[in-house]
């Protein structure tokens, strides 16, 4: 039988890979990919806790579905922003989009 800790450790590793991608990549589309990885890691945790700890209560699955909706909305709006910025400034490098930073 697969112990719960395996799922949690796997999810932690996937989350950290995603975190590195979101922090270190310069291209904003790549940053969104990193965020998607992190959201997936979270989903694995939610479903694993549902399966192992509260199989009778569906809160984990409902939460995972809400995460799907949030991930879809986030990707849709985020990528639309990137496309819009690319149209105006023809760059998608996150460091170059610093007009609002200072």
């Amino acid at each position, binding site marked *: 039988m697969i112990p719960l800790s395996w799922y949690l450790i796997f999810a932690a590793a996937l989350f950290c890979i995603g975190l590195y991608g979101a922090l270190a990549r310069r291209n904003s589309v790549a940053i969104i990919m990193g965020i998607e990885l992190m959201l997936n890691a979270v989903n694995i945790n939610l479903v694993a806790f549902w399966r192992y700890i509260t199989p009778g209560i569906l809160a984990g699955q409902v939460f995972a*579905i809400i995460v*799907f*909706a949030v991930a*879809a*909305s986030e*990707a*849709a709006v985020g*990528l*639309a922003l990137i*496309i819009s910025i690319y*149209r105006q400034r023809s760059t998608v490098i996150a460091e170059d989009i610093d007009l609002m930073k200072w």
Partner: protein
Amino acid sequence: MLDQWIFAAFLLPIGLVIPAVPILLAALLSPHKPNSIKQSTYECGVETVGETWVQFKVQYYIFALVFVVFDVEAVFLFPWAAAYNMMPLYMVLEGVLFILILAAGLIYAWRKGALEWV
């Protein structure tokens, strides 16, 4: 429940192998005489101009965007539909409300001209 998935778990890799075998076989059987004209990009004999990665219009993205939203909506609605038989009327109406809220989004996209192909 897990054993119901075994067949699908077998069939999907087999679905990969079945087309891959003839392709590999063809790579072994067929003649191989490459030359630069044969391998050049096919554009009906016209010389290729510019690079392949031309910019595409944003319309493609808009369609994909509307699709994503409706796909996620369907994800919420499928469990609702599966539980339909044991629901009282007001629960059905909650699902209908969910659909109507998104229908408003479709109407907005329509009015905004996002669904036009230009």
